[in-house]
Structure formats: C-alpha cells, structure tokens
C-alpha cells in the first residue's frame, strides 16, 4: 500500500503556477529523493505534505494529497495532528534556544506529557536513534546552540523522532554541513528507513544516488520523471532527466 499519494496537484502563489499537475505515489519504508534545479518547485512540493505552505498568504492548491488514504487538506483534519504523523527536518539546523533535553521533548511537552520517566526515556531513545546520544549524554542540560552544525541537525532529527511520526520530510538536510557531518546524516537516513517513510529534497545528486530507493526529477514545476533511483541515474527515459543527471544543465 502507498504511504503517501499526490493526485493532480497544482500549486499557485497568487497567479503564479509553481507546481503543475504532479501525481506521485510513495511506498512505506522507502527513501524517496526529490531532485531538480533551484526554483523547480521540489521544496514547495515537499512542504505540501505537512502543510507548511499554509502560512504563505497567496498560497492556493488544487488536487489531492493523501496519507494512508486520507486527504490531508480535508477540513476535518487538524493540522497539528497531521504534523505529529509527518515530521520535518529543515535545510538549516534550527534547534530551539533551549537545552538539548528541552529540544528533544518539545513535541511531547506541547502534547501535554509531563511524566518525567516518559520524557527521560524518549530523550535517550530519540538521541540514540539519531546517533547523537554518546556525544551529548553528559550535557543534556546544556544549550543546544553550543553544539556543532552537524550535531544540531542530528538533534533536530532526534526532536522529530521523539513524537514518533511515520513519515519524515527532509528539506536539503545536509546542504549546510561539512562532508563528515553529511556522511553521518546519510548513514542515519539509511538506518531510519526500516521504521519510517522518508522523503528528501537534495541538490546533491551523489547523495540522492547513495541513499534513495526512488528518485523524482522536477523541472519548472513539473514532475519530469519518477522511477527507481538506479534507473534515473543510469537509464532515464526522458532526455531532460539525462541532461540534468549528467550535469549538462542545472
């Protein structure tokens, strides 16, 4: 069964059409990469899945996006509930200006969970899952802003994992990091796949090749091609895809 489904989605910013009739199905426990040149709409498309575009005044959408078969733009859907199911990691690490501990439990805290035992357990488990526990276990009360960029990004991933989502959206999560931190994040994504469905926007085509099962190539708001990652990089059906992945434009 498909975890995420988008059917004939159009997105407008005012009169500007930025996503043009895109349909895509994403299977559970897979990593899907969105690639394409800057301004092609891949980030906008990603942010449709947790409704982060709702805050843009001129945003308008047509079509249907479903998670487990239910329409996430339905009026009955409470967007706060949706975002507990679909977590997001941003391009620039954006930890809250609070302690490491408080960062991880933020999602639980706003759900009203106060039991110290549950919170402590969640912190340890989430940080272990995000491969950060060993580095920070002795300084959980320290400010998250004192961590390095790569550690901050893993903290943001831990924070997202703590609310136990089923889907994780990642918007160029490694683009602001050095190669070693990037490798750590990529390892992490690979490990998280067994439990979560991951959708990742990336500018880095080697990265898409390394970590994703399927790849979608966007260009000028259109979904040009969507296939197994191997096929996209070695034997794409569209010429535009071939030109992009071989670096002839983009």
């Amino acid at each position, binding site marked *: 069964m498909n975890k995420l489904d988008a059917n004939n989605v159009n997105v407008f910013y005012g009169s500007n059409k930025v996503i043009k009739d895109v349909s895509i199905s994403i299977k559970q426990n897979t990593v899907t990469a969105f690639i394409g040149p800057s301004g092609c709409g891949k980030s906008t498309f990603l942010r449709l899945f947790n409704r982060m575009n709702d805050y843009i*005044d001129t945003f308008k959408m047509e079509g249907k996006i479903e998670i487990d078969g239910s329409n996430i733009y339905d009026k009955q859907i409470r967007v706060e509930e949706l975002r507990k199911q679909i977590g997001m990691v941003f391009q620039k690490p954006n930890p809250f200006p609070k302690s490491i501990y408080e960062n991880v439990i933020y*999602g639980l805290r706003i759900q009203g969970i106060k039991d110290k035992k549950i919170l402590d357990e969640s912190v340890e488990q989430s940080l272990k899952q995000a491969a950060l526990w060993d580095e920070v276990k002795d300084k959980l009360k320290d400010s998250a802003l004192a961590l390095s960029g790569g550690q901050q990004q893993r903290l943001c991933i831990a924070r997202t994992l703590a609310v136990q989502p089923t889907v994780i959206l990642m918007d160029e999560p490694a683009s602001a990091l050095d190669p070693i931190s990037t490798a750590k994040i990529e390892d992490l994504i690979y490990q998280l796949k067994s439990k979560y469905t991951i959708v990742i926007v990336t500018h880095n085509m080697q990265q898409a090749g390394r970590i994703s099962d399927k790849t979608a190539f966007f260009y000028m708001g259109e979904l040009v091609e969507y296939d197994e990652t191997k096929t996209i990089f070695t034997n794409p059906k569209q010429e535009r895809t071939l030109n992009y992945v071989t670096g002839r434009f983009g």
Partner: protein
Amino acid sequence: MNSSKINRIKDNAFKYFGIACTVFGLAMLAIFLGNIIIEGIARIDWAFITNFPSRNPDKAGILPALVGTLWIMGLTAVIAIPLGIAAGIYLEEYGKKSKLATLLEINISNLAGVPSIIYGLLGLEIFGRIMGMGGSLLAGASTLSLLILPIIIVSTREALKAVPSSIKEASFAMGASKWQTVWHQLLPASFGGVITGIILALSRAVGETAPLIVIGALAYVPFVPASPTDEFSVLPIQIFNWISRPQKGFAINAASAIIILLMVTFIMNGIAMYLRNRWQKKVKW
C-alpha cells in the same frame, strides 16, 4: 583638485559636523544636569523624602508625590503591559491578513504621535467623568496606559519580528499550535526586547505631567495615597508647582525633586539596559 580629494574633504567636513552636533546635545544635557545638581543636591536628605508639602520651603517634602509616582507607575504597568503585549502578539502573529488589522496598524503608529495633553482630555472625559473615577490614581493610570500602549505594542511587535522565522517553522512542524509557538518559543526568545520596551514606556509615563494635570491631579496633597481610588499628585506636578512659586527656597526644592525624578527614570533605564544585555547574551542565533 581631483575628485577623490574633494570627497575626502567632504567626508572630513561631515565627520566634524557630526562631532559638533553630538557634543552640542551632550553639552546641553551636562549644563542642565550640572545646574540642577549644584542647586538641589544639598537639599536632599531623608526628611525631604519623607515630609509632606508645606508652605515653608525648608520643611516641605515630596513624600505624597513620590508615593503617587510609584502608585502611578505600578498601576499603569498592571493595566498597560497585558493589553500592550496581547495586542502586539495579535497584530504580529494572528491578524496579518485582515483589512481590520492593517487599519489598526496604521492607527497605532499614529497614536504614538498624538500629543499627551489630548490623551489627558480623553482620560478626563472617559475615565474621570463617564466612568466616574474623578481625579483618582486609577483615572491617571488608565490615561497614562492609553498614552504608552502604542509604545508597548510597537516594541512587542519589533521584538517578535526579530525572532528568526526558522524557529517558528520548527515549532509548527513539531505540531505546535499558534498559541503554543507564541508561548513556548516567541515570547521567551523576544523577552529582552519586550521588557526593554515596557520599561522605556513606563519611564515615559513617570515623566508625564500634562495629561495628569488635565484629569485633575492635585498640586497639594497633604496625605499619602493608600488606594487606587484616592486622589494624588506626582513628582512632575510637584516640581511644576514649586517652580511657579516666587520664593527662592521652592526653586531649590524643585531642583532636588528633579534629581529624585531623574534618579527614578535613570534606574528604570538602567534596568532596561541590564535586562536587554542579559537576554541578548542568552539568546544567540
């Protein structure tokens, strides 16, 4: 002469002009302060602070006016802070799209520029007469609250605006509601700016004279106000009253009272600076 030389001369000319302007302002302030201090510092003692006003300048004190000023400061804070912060949060985070909010926004900026005596007339009519508060502390504090509301609203909005949108996005993406985001993220992160605005607004309120004279604050108060419904005087009115008397002794008293009033506002500004620095150090992006 080539053009780069001319530019350098112009540059220097402006630099010295700027220095002259800065020195002018500071010199005026220094002369003023020096004058006041020379005249008034000797008169300040414990009796001056704890005595009631008197016909005899040597026995007169500022107790009722000082207590009145503290009352006014406290009541104004209680009224204006919640209103101002709530309005600031609404305008910045909630009411962005509506036409009503745009209209409100323009008017609030305008309100900050309305002369304070107009607020006095408004307060006299609404609080003093219609609501029947008369010339009480409550009427005075309500009037001053109106006066400083725009300042608090604007500074709250500025402080909220300074919080990076990435923090807001992160909070929303974690499933937080708007109110949770405001409460857990935006307010703590903007606390330094909000508190600075509040203190500066309050020190403005403490120095105001005109609106309080209009609503009927007294010049001569032979008692210490004990409840918000009592009539009152404040330091600026006491100063104004003493200065307008012919005896030399009262002029000295006025200078002494000015020193006390300046100390009150300097202390408040100092607290504002301290809090701002402290919170800026704590919150770094």
